[in-house]
C-alpha cells in the first residue's frame, strides 16, 4: 500500500521532472514516509485506478442500456475476495469476525491482509503455474520446484515484467533460477508449441492459424508474425549436462524461411519480430558467433542471444501487447471476463468492451512497474469488482451482458479452489490425513518400508495428497494445453461430488469434522447458523433456518443422517460451487 | 574352405567354466564358417544325417534344401513346393531319409527321398490354423503335430492317417516332442502347460509346469510367451524348454530363459539365464552330447547363442551375432561340432565350435 502510493506519486513526478530531481524527491519522500490510507495516497489531479475503473464502466452503461446492481453484501465480499486472492473460502471464525466488524474500512483492511498473506503468494503461484504451463505433465522441472519459485516471486511482489523476463531467459543452469526454465524445458523446447504459447499467453494473440498462412479470418495475425516470433526460439535446444541435468543452449539463428501453403513457391524470410516490430540484431563475423561453440560436451552460448533479446523486448514498452495482455488477464481473473474476450484474441476485429479502460489498466501496470499486488488491490477497491451478482428487483439478469460489468459475473471454482475449500468447510483435514494413511496401509509390505524412513513416508503422504487433488483436476479442470476456462458442469463431476466415498466421507460425521460438531448441537438454529457460516460464509435467512429446523425435526431419530443431508445439500449447491 | 570369421568373444562369466572334451566341441571357439543366404528370413533349420543337406523353412511358402557340397559360399538351394504358408515346424525321420514339415495354415507334408529327389509322400490338412511344431517318433512310425486349434494329433508316418486326437490344451499348442524312449509324447502350449501323453494309447499322464515362460499382459490385454523351443537330451532324462519371461507386453521381448526339467519327477530343476539378461526370446535349444546345453535366440536388439552347463544357471559363454537378427532355430550337425542357426535376416549360418586349423587355439576364458 505504501509502496503503491509512493510509486504513483513518483510516476507523476517523473513525468514532469528530469531524473536528478526525481532522485532528490525520492529521498524527501522516503523521509516523510508514513503509512497512508488509500484516500490520501492519490495525488491531487491523478485519479486512483479504482475510480478510473468505475468511471469508465459507468460511462459505458448507456451503451448497453443497463444500470448497475447493488454493492455485494459483506458476506459475498469476503467469500469472493478470499477465493480470488487466496484460493480458498474464508473459515467460519474469520467470516464471523468480519461480518460483525463495524468499521467502515473493513473491506480495505481485509483486502490488505489477504494480499500480504502467505496464502496469496501460494494461490498466485498455482494460478500462474496453470496459466503458464497449462497442466502439462512435468518433464525436466517438477511442479513443486516451479511453484516454489513462483510463490517466492509473488511473496516478494516481484514485478511481473521481471518475472516473465526471467521465465523467458532462464537457461536452467543456475540452480536458483532453474525452475523458471520450465516454460521452455517442459515444452521440450518445441518451436511451434513455444511460438503459439508465447503468442497467446504472453501477448494475447493466438497465432496458431497463422502458422501456415496469413490468418484466414483475422487480418491482423500475419504469417510473418508467427515465423518472426519463431526466430527468437528456433535456436534454443536442450543440452544434457555431464551431471545429468538437462538445460537450455542456444544455436545462432538470425532468420527463418517460410512460405504460405497457398503459395508454396514464394519463400520469404524474416528476422526476429515481435508481431509487426522487427528487431535489429548486431551482425557477427561468421566463425565468431559463439562464446561457447556447440559441441557434445559444452552447451552452446552465442555472443548475442536471441532469447535474451526476447526476454528484454517482450516485456518492455516496445511491446505494448504485453502490458495489455497482462492487464486484461489480471482483470479477467478478478472480474470473470476479460475486457478483451476471448483472452487470446486481441485484434482490431475484436475490440475491448472498454477500450479506454484497457489502456488505463495497461498504463497502470507499466507506470507502477508491473506491481501486481497494487494492481489487484485497485481492482478489488473498485465498485465494479464489489458489485453483487444479483440484479435489482424487476430486472431480468439474462438481459444484462457480461461485458457491461453492471452485474458481477459468476466464476467457477478452480479444481484447487474446490478441493481446498471443500476440505476446509467440512473441517475434514484430520479425516483426510487418516484417509491417506489408510490408503498407504493397504499395502502392508510397502507401508512397513515407508514407516522406517521419515522422508519416504512424508513423500508417500504428499504423493497421495497430490493424487486426490489430481482427481479434482481431471474432473473440474480444463483440458491439457488449455487455459482454465469458464464454468462448465458435467456428469462425472456431479457423480463425484455426490457419491465419491472419500469426498462423501468428509461430509459424514467423523474425526471432529463439521457434521460431527453440528450433530451434537442441541439448538437447531445454531446448527443452521454454524452450517451456513462454515460452508457458505454467511448467515442463513429465516426461511433457511426454518428449513433446517423442519428437516432436523423430521430426522430426529437419526440426527447425524439429517445433519449430513443438510451439510451435503450446501456443499453441493450452486452457491458453493460458484464464485459469485 | 571359406574364410573363418572369428566371432566376438564376450565378457567373463562367473561359476564353473566349461572345459571342452578332447576332440570335442569348444563353445569358446565358436566361429562363423558359412552363410547360406536367402532373400527371406529363416524360421527353422535341420541337418540331414549325412551333413550334406540342411533343410530350412523361411518367411515364404517353401521348404528349402541347401546342398552344402556345393562349392559356392551360399550353397545350392532348392525350394520344395507344396506348402501354402511359412514353415517353422520341421522334423527329420530317424532314418534320415524323410522329413516332416508343417506350415502356418495347418498343412502337414511328409517328404521322402530327401537326400535325392525329394517329393511329398503325403500332404494333409492337419490343423485349423497353424501347425506350430512337428515331431517324428523314434521308431519312425508316427508323426505328432501341435497347432493353433489347441489340438495335438498323431498320424501314421507312412500314410498320414490320423491315429490319435489329443484334446486338453486350452490355448495354442506351441511345441511337441516324442520322448527318446518312444513311449511318451510331450506337448507344450502358450501358457506354459506341458502335457505328457502316453504312446501308443494317447492317455494323458500328467502336466508339467513351465508357466514361467508365459505372462498375461494386462496393459495390452494379450497372452505373451509360449514354449518356443523344446528338446529332450539323448536318453530322455532331461527336458529343456525355451522362451522368455517377464515380457514387457507386445512392444518388447522379455528375458530369455531355458527351463530344465527332470523327466522322471516332472520338476523344474534349473532356470538357465543368459549372461546379461538380454531382452530376448530363447527360440531353440539342443543338448550337446558333450554335456553342455546350447540355445539360440534374440530380438531386434540382437541375435545370440548361449551356452550352459546344467548345474549352473548362468551361461558360461555367449556369442552375439554380427547381424542384429535373432536365431530362430538351431540344429546340431551330426559331427557335433557345427551349429546351424536360422536367422531372421535371411540366412542359415553355420558356426563351428572349434578353433580354425591355421590359427592358434582361441584362448579359453
Amino acid at each position: 500500500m505504501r509502496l503503491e502510493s509512493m510509486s504513483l506519486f513518483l510516476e507523476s513526478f517523473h513525468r514532469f521532472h528530469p531524473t536528478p530531481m526525481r532522485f532528490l524527491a525520492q529521498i524527501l519522500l522516503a523521509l516523510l514516509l508514513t503509512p497512508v490510507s488509500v484516500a490520501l495516497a492519490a495525488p491531487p489531479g491523478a485519479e486512483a485506478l479504482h475510480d478510473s475503473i468505475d468511471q469508465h464502466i459507468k460511462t459505458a452503461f448507456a451503451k448497453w442500456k443497463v444500470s448497475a446492481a447493488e454493492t455485494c453484501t459483506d458476506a459475498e465480499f469476503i467469500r469472493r475476495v478470499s477465493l480470488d486472492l487466496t484460493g480458498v473460502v474464508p473459515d467460519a471464525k474469520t467470516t464471523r469476525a468480519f461480518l460483525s466488524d463495524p468499521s467502515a474500512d473493513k473491506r480495505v483492511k481485509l483486502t490488505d491482509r489477504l494480499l500480504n498473506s502467505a496464502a496469496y503468494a501460494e494461490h498466485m503461484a498455482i494460478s500462474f503455474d496453470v496459466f503458464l504451463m497449462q497442466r502439462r505433465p512435468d518433464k525436466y522441472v517438477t511442479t513443486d520446484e516451479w511453484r516454489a519459485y513462483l510463490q517466492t516471486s509473488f511473496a516478494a511482489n516481484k514485478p511481473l515484467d521481471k518475472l516473465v523476463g526471467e521465465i523467458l531467459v532462464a537457461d536452467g543452469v543456475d540452480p536458483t533460477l532453474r525452475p523458471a526454465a520450465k516454460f521452455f524445458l517442459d515444452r521440450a523446447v518445441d518451436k511451434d508449441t513455444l511460438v503459439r504459447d508465447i503468442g497467446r499467453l504472453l501477448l494475447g494473440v493466438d497465432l496458431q492459424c497463422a502458422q501456415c498462412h496469413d490468418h484466414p479470418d483475422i487480418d491482423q495475425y500475419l504469417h510473418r508474425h508467427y515465423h518472426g516470433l519463431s526466430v527468437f526460439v528456433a535456436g534454443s535446444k536442450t543440452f544434457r549436462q555431464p551431471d545429468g541435468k538437462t538445460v537450455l543452449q542456444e544455436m545462432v539463428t538470425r532468420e527463418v524461411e517460410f512460405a504460405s501453403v497457398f503459395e508454396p513457391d514464394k519463400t520469404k524470410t524474416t528476422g526476429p519480430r515481435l508481431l509487426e516490430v522487427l528487431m535489429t540484431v548486431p551482425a557477427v563475423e561468421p566463425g565468431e558467433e559463439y562464446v561457447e561453440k556447440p559441441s557434445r560436451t559444452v552447451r552452446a552460448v552465442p555472443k548475442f542471444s536471441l532469447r535474451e533479446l526476447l526476454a528484454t523486448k517482450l516485456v518492455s514498452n516496445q511491446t505494448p501487447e504485453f502490458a495489455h495482455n497482462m492487464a486484461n488477464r489480471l482483470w479477467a481473473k478478478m472480474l470473470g471476463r476479460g475486457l478483451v474476450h476471448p483472452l487470446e484474441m486481441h485484434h482490431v476485429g475484436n475490440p475491448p468492451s472498454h477500450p479506454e479502460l484497457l489502456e488505463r489498466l495497461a498504463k497502470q501496470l507499466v507506470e507502477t512497474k508491473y506491481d501486481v499486488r497494487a494492481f489487484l488491490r485497485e481492482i478489488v477497491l473498485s465498485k465494479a469488482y464489489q458489485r453483487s451478482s444479483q440484479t435489482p428487483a424487476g430486472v431480468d439478469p439474462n438481459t444484462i451482458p457480461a461485458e457491461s460489468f453492471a452485474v458481477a459475473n459468476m466464476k467457477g471454482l478452480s479444481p484447487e479452489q474446490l478441493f481446498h475449500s471443500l476440505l476446509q468447510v467440512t473441517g475434514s483435514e484430520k479425516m483426510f490425513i487418516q484417509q491417506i494413511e489408510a490408503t498407504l496401509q493397504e499395502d502392508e509390505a510397502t507401508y512397513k518400508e515407508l514407516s522406517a524412513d521419515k522422508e519416504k513416508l512424508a513423500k508417500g503422504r504428499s504423493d497421495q495428497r497430490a493424487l486426490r487433488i489430481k482427481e479434482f483436476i481431471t474432473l473440474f479442470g480444463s483440458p491439457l494445453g488449455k487455459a482454465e476456462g469458464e464454468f462448465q458442469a458435467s456428469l462425472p463431476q456431479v457423480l463425484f461430488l455426490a457419491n465419491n466415498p472419500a469426498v462423501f466421507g468428509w461430509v459424514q460425521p467423523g474425526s471432529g469434522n463439521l457434521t460431527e460438531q453440528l450433530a451434537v448441537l442441541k439448538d437447531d438454529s445454531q446448527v443452521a447458523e454454524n452450517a451456513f457460516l462454515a460452508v457458505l460464509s454467511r448467515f442463513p435467512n429465516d426461511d433457511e433456518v426454518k428449513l433446517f429446523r423442519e428437516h432436523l425435526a423430521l430426522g430426529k431419530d437419526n440426527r447425524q443422517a439429517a445433519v449430513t443431508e443438510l451439510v451435503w445439500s450446501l456443499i453441493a449447491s450452486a452457491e458453493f460451487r460458484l464464485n459469485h | 574352405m571359406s574364410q573363418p570369421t572369428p566371432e566376438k568373444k564376450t565378457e567373463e562369466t562367473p561359476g564353473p567354466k566349461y572345459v571342452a572334451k578332447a576332440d570335442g566341441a569348444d563353445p569358446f571357439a565358436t566361429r562363423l564358417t558359412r552363410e547360406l543366404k536367402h532373400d527371406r528370413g529363416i524360421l527353422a533349420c535341420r541337418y540331414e544325417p549325412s551333413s550334406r543337406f540342411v533343410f530350412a523353412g523361411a518367411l515364404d511358402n517353401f521348404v528349402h534344401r541347401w546342398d552344402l557340397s556345393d562349392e559356392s559360399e551360399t550353397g545350392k538351394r532348392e525350394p520344395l513346393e507344396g506348402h501354402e504358408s511359412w514353415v517353422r515346424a520341421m522334423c527329420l525321420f530317424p532314418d534320415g531319409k524323410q522329413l516332416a514339415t508343417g506350415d502356418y495354415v495347418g498343412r502337414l507334408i511328409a517328404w521322402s527321398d530327401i537326400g535325392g529327389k525329394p517329393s511329398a509322400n503325403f500332404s494333409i490338412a492337419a490343423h485349423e490354423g497353424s501347425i506350430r511344431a512337428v515331431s517324428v517318433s523314434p521308431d519312425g512310425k508316427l508323426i505328432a503335430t501341435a497347432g493353433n486349434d489347441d489340438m495335438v494329433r498323431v498320424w501314421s508316418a507312412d500314410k498320414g492317417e490320423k491315429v490319435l486326437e489329443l484334446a486338453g490344451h486350452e490355448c495354442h499348442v506351441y511345441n511337441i516332442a516324442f520322448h527318446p524312449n518312444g513311449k511318451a509324447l510331450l506337448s507344450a502350449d502358450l501358457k506354459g502347460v506341458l502335457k505328457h501323453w502316453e504312446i501308443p494309447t494317447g492317455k494323458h499322464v500328467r502336466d508339467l509346469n513351465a508357466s514361467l515362460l508365459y505372462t498375461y499382459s494386462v496393459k495390452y490385454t494379450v497372452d505373451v510367451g509360449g514354449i518356443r523351443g523344446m528338446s529332450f537330451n539323448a536318453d530322455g532324462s532331461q527336458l529343456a524348454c525355451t522362451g522368455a519371461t517377464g515380457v514387457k507386453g507386445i512392444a518388447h521381448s522379455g528375458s530369455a530363459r531355458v527351463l530344465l526339467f527332470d523327466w522322471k519327477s516332472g520338476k523344474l530343476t534349473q532356470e538357465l539365464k543368459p549372461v546379461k539378461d538380454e531382452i530376448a526370446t530363447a527360440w531353440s535349444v539342443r543338448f550337446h552330447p558333450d554335456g553342455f546345453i546350447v540355445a539360440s535366440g534374440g530380438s531386434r536388439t540382437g541375435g545370440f547363442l548361449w551356452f550352459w552347463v546344467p548345474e549352473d544357471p548362468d551361461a558360461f559363454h555367449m556369442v552375439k551375432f554380427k547381424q542384429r537378427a535373432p536365431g530362430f532355430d538351431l540344429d546340431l550337425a551330426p559331427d557335433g561340432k557345427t551349429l546351424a542357426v536360422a536367422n531372421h535376416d535371411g540366412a542359415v549360418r553355420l558356426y563351428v565350435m572349434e578353433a580354425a586349423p591355421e590359427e592358434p587355439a582361441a584362448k579359453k576364458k
Partner: protein
Amino acid sequence: MNRDPYCGSDAHLVSRRSMLSNMLTGAAGVGLVGRLIHPSVAKEIEAKKKQVLIFLLNGGLSQFESFDPKPKTDTGGPFRSIPTSVSGTHFCELMPNTAKIAHKLAVVRSMFAEKVPGSHGGARDYVETGRPPQLGPYPLLGPVYSKLLDEAGELPGNIHVAPSRWGPRQDAAFLGPKHASLVLSGGRPPLNVDRPASIEKDSDDARYRLRKIADLRFSQRRRTAHTEAYNSSYDQAQKLIRRKELFDVSQESERERQRYGSHDFGRHCLLARRMLEAGVTCVKVTHNNYDSHMENFNFHLEQLGEFDKPFATLFEDLDERGMLDNTLVVLITEFGRTPAIQPDLGRDHWPPNWSVVLGGCGIQVGGVLGATNANGTEIADRPVHVAEMFHTYMQAVGLDPTATHDIGGNKIPVGAPERGAVKELLS
C-alpha cells in the same frame, strides 16, 4: 452447424428406447416433456435420430492381417486371404465373420496422413479429430457428436466403453467437459454411480431435494446460464443413476452373452448394443491392443480372434433391429503397420497407408475405395486423408463439416477447412 431439421419442437425430444419398448418409462412414448406422442410422429422421429458406433482398434491394426491382405508376398506374412461377400474383395483369413458382411461395409485401403506422431495418443487424436495434434487440442468424434447430434436427453451424449486401465479424459477440448465422453473403464458402470454404501435411499433422496431447494433460492435474480447448467447436471446424474442398469450387461440374456463371447471385447460390444438401443447418440468401443512390434502374427491372431465375431454380431444385430440405416458405424485405428517384418516377427508403426472401414447411415457400402500396391508399401490409387474421413463421418449423419463451432465468439471449423468429405463413400 446442421442440427436435425426436424428438431425444434419439444415433441421430438423423446428417446428412441422409450418409443420402442415401454419398459423404462412405463407408458407409450412418454418422454422428457411428459407428453404422449402419436405413433406416426414417433416413427418419424425414430427415423430421423442419428446415432454413431465407433470401434477403435488401439495400437495400430495391421492392414495386412485384416482388410488389405497381401498373401504370398515378401510383406504379406503367413496368413492367407479369404473371399468376402463382395466378389473380388478379400480379407485376411483372421476375419471370417467380418468377411461375410463385407457387402454391408465400405473399406478404405488408402488412408494416410502426414506428420503422424509416433506416439499412440497423438496418433489416435489425429484420426479422431481430423486435425494433427500439433495444432492443439481439438474435440474427438464422440464429443463432437454429443454437441452437434445429441439432443441432450436422458442419457449422456457420448459413451466410451474403454479398456480397464483407461480413465476419464478431457476429450472435448474447447467444447467443454459437458461433452466429454463418459468413460466406462473396463466396461464397468461409470465411476461413482452408486450412492455411498453408508446412506439409505431415503437419505439419498432427501439430500438431492434439499440441494435443489438451495439452488432455487440462489438462482433468484441471478443469471441462469451457470445455475441451469449446474442444476441440469444434477438432474442428469439422477436420471443416469436411475438408469444405471443400462450399464449392467449381465441383464442381457445368457444366450446373448454367449453369442457375443465371454471376453471383455465381446461383453463391451453387447453393452454397446444395449446403450444404442436405449438411444445413446454415440458409443465408442475400444479394443486393446494391436501394437505388435513383436510377434505381430500371434498377437493379431489373438486380438482379431476376439474382435471378428462380436464386431460382426453387433453389426448384424443393428441391421436386424432396423437401426443400421440411422447408425453410422466406423472402424478406425491410429495407423497401420510396416510392410517389413521386424526381427521379433513384429511390424512397427506405418502411417503412409492403412485401412479404415465404415458402414451404416449415409455410407455407400459393398466396395473398396483406394488401393495399395502389390506388397502394400505404398498407395497405388485414391489416397484418402484422415481429415477427409473426418468430414465424411460428419456428413454421413447429416452434419455439415464446413460449419463452425461458436466458442465464445471464436469460430472454429468443425472439419479442417482445407479438406472435404469423400464423396465416393457417401450414399
